[in-house]
């Protein structure tokens, strides 16, 4: 018997991860050679190109959401991991404390300073600034800092009484000058060619100027300088360009038999707002035999409006009235990413950089393998 090519519905069904009330089915993909007799599923760049697409849902400075459709989980996960751990950013690495009489300990203060995200001119940050490598010889330490690998900052704050404060004032921020030390008090000290890349709006500055670093009382002082270096998230989380970079699979809600009337309203309440809409059954639908709508013209029916907003809580599967009327699932090859930038990179640029990084890694590997075979 000759092999019949799979129908469109069959191909679609193969992509769905089934979500039942107690179990998850069809977790693994099946589009690999030898799984379906008579079908060729060997990987092909043209077939991949035909099936692959990218769709942007949101693209702001601090948050981007987009879908990769038609790619494998291994690739999608590689992008996610690269975004978190391998995209370089600039962060405070060394803190030189001259004086710190505040209640916050030196090491804790240094740690807090390290976690503050900074922004600056993109050309300077991504092209001009290079890696700083700790010299193997400790004596060469002072010869390792250059304008292209170190950014210098300082923080000098002294708390004093405010003579102009009203009598009976209890708010420390009004009673004293500099009772709170904020990220905006950090001063950028450009050296060498840094003036060219980081001036005006491109200056190195904290993304969020209102981050509270420490609290002071009159007589207390913080006086320190800092060195910033480039680093990657795999070294320390402060170097990660993203607050979160995650993906989820596209939810699929399949209403197999009509859900009408009060049941439809209850069904809509089982999902987040906007996922299920209520529509009136048209006369045409009611006239159709075997559709399940016979004699229900004008009643409300539940229709799937926006499955992407679903959280797949499976609430609808707990109710007997929806039994066998709905099938839940997720599309195995549709990844909805959410990338939240800390501000040093544009949120969409992080993903593009991740793609470039993976490409570079693959080329490096190719070279290594070629050398190995030679």
């Amino acid at each position: 018997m000759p092999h019949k090519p799979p129908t469109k519905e069959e191909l679609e069904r193969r992509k769905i991860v089934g979500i039942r009330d107690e179990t998850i089915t069809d977790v693994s993909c099946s589009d690999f050679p030898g799984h379906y007799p008579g079908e060729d599923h060997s990987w092909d760049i043209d077939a991949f190109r035909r099936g692959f697409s990218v769709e942007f849902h949101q693209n702001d400075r601090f948050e981007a959401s987009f879908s990769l459709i038609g790619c494998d989980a291994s690739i999608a996960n590689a992008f996610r991991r690269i975004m978190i751990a391998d995209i370089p950013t600039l962060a405070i690495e060394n803190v030189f404390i001259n004086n710190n009489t505040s209640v916050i300990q030196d090491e804790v203060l240094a740690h807090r300073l390290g976690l503050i995200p900074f922004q600056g001119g993109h050309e300077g940050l991504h092209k001009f600034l290079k890696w700083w490598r700790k010299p193997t010889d400790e004596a060469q330490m002072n010869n390792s800092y250059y304008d292209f690998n170190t950014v210098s900052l300082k923080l000098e704050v002294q708390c004093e009484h405010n003579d102009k404060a009203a009598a009976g004032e209890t708010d420390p921020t009004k009673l004293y000058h500099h009772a709170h030390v904020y990220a905006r008090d950090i001063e950028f000290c450009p050296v060498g060619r840094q003036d060219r890349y980081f001036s005006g709006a491109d200056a190195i500055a904290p993304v969020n100027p209102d981050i509270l670093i420490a609290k002071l009382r009159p007589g207390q002082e913080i006086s320190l300088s800092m060195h910033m270096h480039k680093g990657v998230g795999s070294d320390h989380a402060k170097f990660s360009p993203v607050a979160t970079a995650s993906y989820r699979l596209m939810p699929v809600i399949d209403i197999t038999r009509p859900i009408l009337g009060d049941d439809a309203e209850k069904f809509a309440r089982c999902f987040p707002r906007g996922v299920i809409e209520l529509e009136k059954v048209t006369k045409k639908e009611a006239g159709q035999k075997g559709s399940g709508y016979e004699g229900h013209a004008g009643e409300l029916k539940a229709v799937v409006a926006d499955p992407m907003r679903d959280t797949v809580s499976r609430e609808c599967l707990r109710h007997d009235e929806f039994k066998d009327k709905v099938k839940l699932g997720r599309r195995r090859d549709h990844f909805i990413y959410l990338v939240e930038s800390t501000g040093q990179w544009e949120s969409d640029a992080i993903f593009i950089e991740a793609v470039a990084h993976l490409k570079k890694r693959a080329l490096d590997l190719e070279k290594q393998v070629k050398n190995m075979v030679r």
Partner: protein
Amino acid sequence: MSREQYQVPTGSGSPTIGTGSFSAPTARDYTGDVGGVMYYMCGDCAVRVPLEKGAPIRCQKCGARVLYKERTKRMVQFEAR
């Protein structure tokens, strides 16, 4: 009259230790301090108390007997991790 100043250990065991307060290079900067006077912080009223050698350990202002050492004037380096 001046007290022998504290020498920062250099690690190489140099014989400069104990060669006198003015001949040895000092790592600490006590500019403005009179030789032999050390400053402490009063534990009660937080005032800066100058103490000479042999003076009773006591705050001149409030009479508290708990005095704290001042923080080092030297730079301290930390990794921001």
